[in-house]
């Protein structure tokens, strides 16, 4: 075990973290709505030193054949080197793909997007909602920053127009919002020395054994979970994380609402 890890663990045994936070405390969360005018919706989120932009774009596509009357959601992440010297150019790898899929799953499984309202013509044309996440600074816990940015961007996204005759999208925002019924929020816990720390920093990520992300919704239901990293965890720890994720999710949901 390296020195940093021992240091983190010894602090944690006294209920403290290196940056002075309590184990169940998020870093300061700042949410800016609409930084990207060209996008149908967008949000910039700072989680301490971690910063991401999420942008929503709409396209018209053929629906999947098993859901001919439903629009489609796609979440995509590119880990650009601007955000961290550790990120490399090239097609998304494991980390970027998992990140996008955790955010995607939280949104999808909460059914917050009313996909049936995104149908233009059954079996032929539906709206595809693309959420792209661009990290600007990675100082730990990109998952929560991305999840918050994604839902905030969606909540403020406006529909554009579809010109059926010309079969093309007219990129002029209308007054109509992207149909959204819920606010799923992911909360990520670092697992270190058998303990949970919410919203880990980059140095904590380097020392921790693994992580657990739980996404909850307005009603306090659990919509998605994902363990990451080469750790194992007990039932009690999962229980504890579930409790906390509901509580922290509520706080963050309130912050998002205030930022609108």
């Amino acid at each position, binding site marked *: 075990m390296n020195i940093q890890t021992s240091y983190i663990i010894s602090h944690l045994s006294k209920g403290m973290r290196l940056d002075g936070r309590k184990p169940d405390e998020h870093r300061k969360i700042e949410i800016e709505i609409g930084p990207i005018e060209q996008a149908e919706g967008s949000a910039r989120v700072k989680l301490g030193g971690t910063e991401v932009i999420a942008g929503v774009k709409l396209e018209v596509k053929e629906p999947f054949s098993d859901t001919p009357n439903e629009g489609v959601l796609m979440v995509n992440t590119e880990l650009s080197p601007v955000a961290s010297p550790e990120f490399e150019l090239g097609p998304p*790898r494991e980390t970027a793909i998992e990140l996008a899929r955790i955010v995607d799953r939280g949104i999808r*499984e909460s059914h917050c997007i009313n996909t049936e309202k995104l149908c233009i013509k059954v079996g032929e044309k539906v709206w595809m909602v693309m959420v792209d996440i661009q990290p600007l600074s990675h100082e730990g816990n990109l998952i929560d920053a991305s999840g918050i940015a994604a839902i905030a961007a969606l909540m403020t996204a406006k529909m554009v127009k579809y010109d059926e005759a010309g079969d093309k999208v007219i990129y002029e925002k209308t007054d109509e919002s992207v149909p959204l019924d819920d606010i799923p929020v992911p909360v990520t816990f670092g697992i270190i020395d058998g303990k949970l720390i919410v919203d880990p920093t980059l140095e904590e990520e380097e020392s921790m054994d693994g992580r657990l992300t739980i996404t909850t919704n307005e009603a306090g239901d*659990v*919509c998605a*979970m*994902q*363990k990451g990293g080469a750790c*194992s965890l007990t039932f009690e720890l*999962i229980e504890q994380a579930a409790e906390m994720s509901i509580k922290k999710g509520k706080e963050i949901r309130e912050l998002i609402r205030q930022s609108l």
Partner: protein
Amino acid sequence: MTTYKRNDGRKLDETRPIKMKVGVLKHADGSALVSIGKTVALAAVYGPRELNPRHMQESDRAILQCNYTMAPFSTKERVRPGPSRRSTEISKVTREALEPALFLKDFPKTTIDLYIVILQANAGTRTAGINAASLALADAGIQMRDLVTSIAAGKIEGHYVIDLNGEEEELTDCDLPIAYMPREKKFTLIQMDGKITKEDMKNVIKLAVKGCETLYEHQRKALLEKWSKEGFE
């Protein structure tokens, strides 16, 4: 809880028929074939062996490399060959579900390569793959803290049900796969899709743990069978 009839007649806490066999591939260092209902997973292990290129080596431990693939004919709609976002994620969570059971520090600078092929898919492919992989690692003679077992559970019409089949996957309120080390009583994979209360979630996990204990017996039996055969030969 007794009123719900599962579409295949199973009890709520009953897994689909399970078949497990180890040592099924001649060329791998370890291998296993696992079928759970109509889902069939094949796993092959090579290693620990020297890792090339060298700059990928870890000086103080082995790395585990894991690749999950679906055979193109394994599903209703043909699976396009090559990695997808889904298969990349499953390869990752599978690796992370197995790593806690291994003593990677025993084999510095090496790699253990694990290949999982889903030959037939009817729900639960990642969990079947983990069960097969765990057996293949044991078959390769790689020491493990515990066998890793894996199964999903869910909730249909108010009832907790284990080991969802393809049709149940459409009906369930949640799909919650776990990987679990039964002797250690530790979880090494947790994922969930769905929308359920915290209480439901706990109950679903508990039911999945029960399923893992059943699978554990099957795994042990499969290993025993192979070892006893080898004894005779």
